[in-house]
């Protein structure tokens, strides 16, 4: 099933992620992410907070095809996203991912039954299950997205050296595995949050001039 995992994790998978910075655009504009070291700290914090939470939700979604349980996880995502702007982003990315996942696994009843506007981590977990992946793999997908999207956005916005970014991502790789493991084995759905990311997400939404959708 590794090939299916790589397909879903590929940045070229057409699920809309390329237009979202995960708060990196706002952090760059605020002057708090300016170079490779500050980006690394940003990514580390993001991974262990919203990354862990998304991974926990995705892993839980990958364990079930029951619409009632998925609806419950969708409400749990809602409660874990206090910013209305970021809730809208999560629903939008969920819709975009659902479109691609249904194209990839058209026979999957769970994907077919998911309501449009389901939150992104729940769709991600469902897509992983449809692709034959485990909950642990779903968590890995979520932490990968939590880090790689903002990393690419910062690379574009700051004109960073891509090789230095590769070094950062390689250093973080064991942490990604650790967080995915924690998320997939958690007895209670994680709710780790990052105050600055909430603040950035809510404020960025009202900007007139922006390159990224979030």
């Amino acid at each position, binding site marked *: 099933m590794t090939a299916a995992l790589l397909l879903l994790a590929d940045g*070229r*998978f*057409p*699920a*809309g*992620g*390329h*237009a*979202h*910075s995960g708060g990196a655009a706002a952090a760059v504009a605020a002057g708090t992410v300016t170079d490779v070291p500050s980006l690394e700290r940003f990514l580390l914090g993001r991974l262990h907070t919203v990354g862990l939470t998304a991974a926990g939700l995705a892993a839980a979604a990958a364990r079930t095809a029951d619409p009632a349980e998925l609806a419950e996880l969708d409400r749990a995502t809602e409660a874990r996203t206090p910013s209305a702007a970021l809730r809208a982003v999560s629903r*939008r990315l969920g*819709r*975009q*991912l*659902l*479109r*691609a996942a*249904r*194209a990839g696994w058209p026979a999957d009843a769970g994907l077919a039954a998911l309501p*449009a506007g389901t939150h992104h981590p729940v769709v991600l977990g469902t897509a992983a299950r449809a692709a034959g992946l485990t909950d642990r793999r779903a968590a890995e997908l979520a932490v990968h997205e939590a880090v790689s999207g903002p990393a690419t*956005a910062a690379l*574009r*916005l700051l004109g960073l050296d891509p090789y230095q970014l590769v070094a950062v991502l390689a250093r973080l790789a064991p942490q990604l595995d650790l967080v995915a493991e924690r998320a997939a084995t958690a007895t209670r759905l994680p709710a780790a949050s990052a105050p600055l990311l909430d603040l950035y997400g809510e404020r960025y939404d009202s900007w*007139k*001039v*922006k*390159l*990224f*959708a979030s």
Partner: protein
Amino acid sequence: MHRDHIADESGAPVVSAAPPGPRRALRIGLGGPVGSGKTATVAALCRALRAELSLGVVTNDIYTTEDAEFLLRHAVLAPERITAVATGCCPHTAIRDDISANLEAVEELEAKAGPLDLVLVESGGDNLTATFSRGLVDAQIFVIDVAGGDKIPRKGGPGVTSADLLVINKTDLAELVGADLAVMARDATAQRGERPFVFTSLAAPDGVAPVTAWVRERLAGWG
């Protein structure tokens, strides 16, 4: 002619998260380099067609709302008929490789302001290689201008060679910038074979007429 959108549509249906309606709007993409007149062409098309057709516009400006606001400011359409998509610094990705945000935007417009006859999807200004995915639009227009140099048709590139219509805009400036329209016409024909191109000068009254006529033909075939 290689264009047969209805056959394309039935042969390779667009995968949609929304249930397919009985008939969706014709979708036409407008691409081309920065400053060639894409937004002005969209605005002129809307003015020319809005009385007879139900229209929607999706813009893909790098600054998200800039083009949408131009259209709003010039009141070419009601606000609920215009929407903007952010492209994360990669306008070509949003119209070609990962069209999901644009598809969402088109479907939301149709849901909000529909039923629509025609949706224009305007790309952010990009380079000569940027073309629209056939999964997003049924036909595409590539807009260049004489001020960009009369060599552009000769350079070719997917936009110039494969767009369903090539628009060479700002002919009123040709003399000022020393562009030879005859050379551009010859090169365009050489690059495009039977695919049509038109010269426009949007500064002139109803300067968009050749494009309007082409769009009407597409609509007639779509209906």
